[in-house]
Every structure is written in structure tokens, then in C-alpha cells.
């Protein structure tokens, strides 16, 4: 029981990070119907920006942890958003009216470009960050096993809930969010209603990259090491999460992230850690057999 609870806490933490990245995949798919394969690498860039920001802040003497975290969060979100915007502007927009596979291919190209750029600019070795958020609470213990929820886990889950809540309001309660959803449903009609569709698509990339930056920062804090290749594995997982929840559905991405995080954690805890990825992807295959559109996805057919 204690062991189960501990794994649940670990799984929710990991799932939060996946969920934040999955939203970026699902939103881009929703609005332009393409899988942005470079999104995982945007997350990786976000993690690097966060790391550099931490080091820069330490150099200029800002070491108070809450202040540093907040500043790093803002810096990482803003700069990563600029990266997300640039990727769309450079690699996807010129191909908007092209055949369907073209942006997919440039997305893979962009992914390789970002990975190699960071590899060259930052080096291929793993980059460590000394633990910034330490400590935790022992919930209870059973025999020699104690269930611990660490401060960093609390920080990750709380930040994720806050960011997702704010994001939910933005999409569902503001004119900006309404325009975003309109473009998702019918781009031509959105334009006829006076919505600048290109601007809205850019905004989608900016928002997705911002959320990925939050995930990058949390990943950095949680694991303490990053390298130029993390975007690939974590990105594929988050993409799986988005498909799992129903690609195009934002609540689906959040839910899918959580489930993939839990599957992975529980499989590692009770079976073999080597097969955790196999477990996650197998579950995806099984779910897609019974729910072809994912858990919360909607069928393509709509009443006209």
C-alpha cells in the first residue's frame, strides 16, 4: 500500500510534465492538422534556457530560491515562446498551402536542427544543475518503507495545475481563446469573421512553446541533468500522451499525460524498468484499438 502510494505520487509528477508538453502537440494538431515533431526539441531548448537563466541569475547574485524560480520561469517561457514562434514562421508557414506531408517533413528537419544546434552550442555532455528545491514531507511509514512527497514534486504538480488552469481560462473565456478555437473548427469562416488566421496560428505555437518551457524547467529541477537529446524521448512520450487522450483535445492531452506518466512509473516499480517504454506504447496501441480517436477525442464526422 505504501509502495503503491509512493509510486502514485511519482507517476503524477512525471505525468504533469508529459501533460504540459502534450498540450503543445494537441493544439498544433487541432489548428493546422500537423504533428509538430520539433515540439519535443522546443521543450529541450526550454530546459536549456532555464539552466542558463539559473546560472546567469546566480552569477549576478540572485540566489533567493522563490525569486530565482519565478524569474527563470518567466525568462524560459518568453524566450522559448520566441523559439516556437520562429520555428512556425521559418519552417511551417511557407508550406501552409503545400501538400500535407511537406510540413511534417520540415518538422522532422526542424527537430534535427534544434538538436544539433544545442549539441554544438552547449556541448554533447549532460549538464547538471545542483538541487535547488530540496526537502520534503514524510507522509507515513509502513515498516521500514516511508512514503515521501518531496517539495520538488509538490512544486511540479502545483505549477502544472496552476498553469493548466490559467491556460484553460485563456482558451475558454477570452476572445483570444475563442478565435483560437474558431480557427481550429473552420479557418475560412474564422477569416470571414475578421480573425487573422496566421496570427492565431503563430499564437498557438507561442502558447505551446510557453507550456513546453514550463515543462522544461520542471524537468530540469526534477532530474537535475539535461542533455541535447532529452527532447526526443520525452517528446515522443508526450506525443503518445496526446494521441492517447485524443489528439486535438486539450483535456485529453492533460489526461493522456497523466496516464502515460502513471503507466510508466507503475510498470517500472512492479515489473521491469527496461520495459517501461514498451508498456506505455503498448497501452497506446490497445487503447487505440478500442477508442480509435483516443480517450476524449471526437470522431471526425460532424453533423453538417
Amino acid at each position, binding site marked *: 500500500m505504501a509502495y503503491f502510494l509512493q509510486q502514485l505520487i511519482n507517476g503524477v509528477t512525471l505525468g504533469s510534465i508529459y501533460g504540459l508538453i502534450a498540450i503543445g502537440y494537441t493544439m498544433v494538431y487541432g489548428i493546422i492538422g500537423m504533428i509538430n515533431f520539433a515540439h519535443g526539441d522546443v521543450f529541450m531548448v526550454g530546459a536549456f534556457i532555464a539552466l542558463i537563466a539559473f546560472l546567469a541569475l546566480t552569477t549576478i547574485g540572485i540566489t533567493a530560491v522563490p525569486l530565482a524560480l519565478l524569474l527563470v520561469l518567466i525568462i524560459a517561457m518568453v524566450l522559448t515562446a520566441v523559439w516556437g514562434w520562429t520555428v512556425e514562421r521559418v519552417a511551417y508557414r511557407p508550406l501552409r498551402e503545400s501538400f500535407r506531408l511537406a510540413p511534417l517533413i520540415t518538422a522532422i528537419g526542424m527537430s534535427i536542427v534544434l538538436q544539433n544546434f544545442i549539441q554544438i552550442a552547449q556541448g554533447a555532455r549532460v549538464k547538471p544543475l545542483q538541487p535547488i528545491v530540496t526537502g520534503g514531507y514524510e507522509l507515513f511509514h509502513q515498516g521500514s518503507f516511508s512514503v515521501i512527497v518531496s517539495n520538488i514534486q509538490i512544486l511540479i504538480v502545483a505549477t502544472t495545475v496552476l498553469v493548466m488552469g490559467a491556460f484553460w481560462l485563456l482558451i475558454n473565456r477570452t*476572445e483570444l481563446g*475563442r*478565435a483560437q*478555437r*474558431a480557427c481550429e*473548427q*473552420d479557418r*475560412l*469562416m*474564422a*477569416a*470571414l*469573421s*475578421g*480573425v*487573422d*488566421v496566421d496570427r492565431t496560428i503563430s499564437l498557438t505555437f507561442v502558447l505551446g512553446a510557453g507550456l513546453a518551457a514550463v515543462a522544461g524547467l520542471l524537468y530540469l529541477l526534477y532530474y537535475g541533468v539535461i542533455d541535447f537529446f532529452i527532447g526526443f524521448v520525452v517528446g515522443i512520450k508526450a506525443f503518445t500522451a496526446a494521441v492517447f487522450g485524443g489528439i486535438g483535445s486539450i483535456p485529453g492531452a492533460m489526461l493522456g499525460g497523466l496516464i502515460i506518466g502513471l503507466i510508466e512509473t507503475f510498470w517500472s516499480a512492479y515489473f521491469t524498468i527496461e520495459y517501461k517504454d514498451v508498456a506505455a506504447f503498448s497501452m497506446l496501441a490497445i487503447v487505440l484499438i478500442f477508442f480509435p480517436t483516443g480517450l476524449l477525442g*471526437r470522431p471526425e464526422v*460532424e*453533423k*453538417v
Partner: protein
Amino acid sequence: MTAPLLALDGVTVGYGLLPVLHDVSLQIRSGEIVCLIGANGAGKTTTMMTICGRPRVSHGQVVFDGTDISQHPTHEIARLGICQSPEGRRIFARMTVMENLQMGAIVANTPDGFESDLARVFALFPRLADRSNQRGGTLSGGEQQMLAIARALMGRPKLLLLDEPSLGLAPLVVKQIFEAIKELNAQGLTVFLVEQNAFYALKLANRGYVMVNGRITMTGTGDELLASEHVREAYLDGATGPEEEVSIS
């Protein structure tokens, strides 16, 4: 005579290499209802969409309020006050009726005027008020058509474009919608109407144009066209779709 609100001047349009509109010229003056009639595939909807910049003209000009808008992006054309209720209604199916109307209000860009505009369209289509929290996709065809028109009206249009407002609707609903158009026009709204339901459209309109294979072949006042032998033969008698029975009722 004053300059027209909207003028198409020698407009030629093609999808790819295939030309669809040939040298189309027409004028719509402030306060008028102008209708464009023609058979299926004649290019009526393309004419309507060309005004909004989709597709773009390959030759000729679209002049609105004295400016050539033929190279403007679609959303900027909308923001000039050209609001369209397009072919197929294009309701945002996963948004509520209210959100659809809020989308329409973007063009008006007057947050303060929203409530009064809303009251106005609800007075025109009371059914929409009952359905305001329902998703657009769950409405009946007639209700969706009302919503499409209401959404366009929320933009406080200078020019309202209506593409086949009667398509697929019950006779009673068609009558209701045409009465609504008439009422709006009486309040000063300029309307450009595309219809297959020629009888109703010509009775309603001040002037009409007839389109055949992407060319304007005839123009005149509504009554003139109604009286014309050619129009009667081609669009009012015999060769009719189910909508034509509507006009008899």
C-alpha cells in the same frame, strides 16, 4: 448617382488554371438589395467568396467604399464591414450559439454595443435566444441558417452577403428569413443575395443579375427580370429543384 458601395469591375477568377468567372462586373449601391441568380455551378458562390478575397481575382478590381480590396487579406476585408453568411452556413459546431454570435461581433469591434446588438438579433430570431447555450452543431438546419445570418449581423455590416439563405429549408422558415432580410433592409442595411430560389429573390430585390457559366448575361430591376421571358423559362418554370415549389406556396 452616387458611387456604388461595392463594385466588381471586369473580375476574372480561376481555380488553378480553370477559369470560373469571366469579366464579371456588377454594382451594389447603399441601401439596395441586389440578388444574383443562376443555375447550380454558374459561379454565384465564387462571386460571393471573391468579394472576400477567397479566391483572389486574377484580373479586374473589387472596389468597396472607394478602395480596391482585391488584394486585401480576408480578415481585413471582413473588418471593413463586409459580413457573410456563407454557403453551407459554416456554423462553429463545437461552440455555443452565444459564442458563435460573439465570433460575429469581432468585426463590429464595439464591446459596449454587444448587448444591444444581441437584443436586436434575438428579436429578429427569437428561437436563437432559447438556444443560446446550445452547441451550434446540435441546431436544426433552419436554426443554423438563422444563426449564420445573425452571426453576420452581429458584425454591424455595411454590406451583408447572403449565400443561399433558403437552401434546404422548410417553406415557412424561408418565408421568415426573407421577411427578416426585408426588415433589415428597411432599416438601411445593404444586402447582396445569391439564390437559386429565383422567384423569392427577385421579388425581394431592387435589382438582379443573372449569371450563366461564370458570366453576367442579364441585369435589371427585380420586376423586369421576373417579367423576362428568358428568366421565366430558365429559372422559374419547369426546370426546377424542390426549392421552386416553395415559391409557389
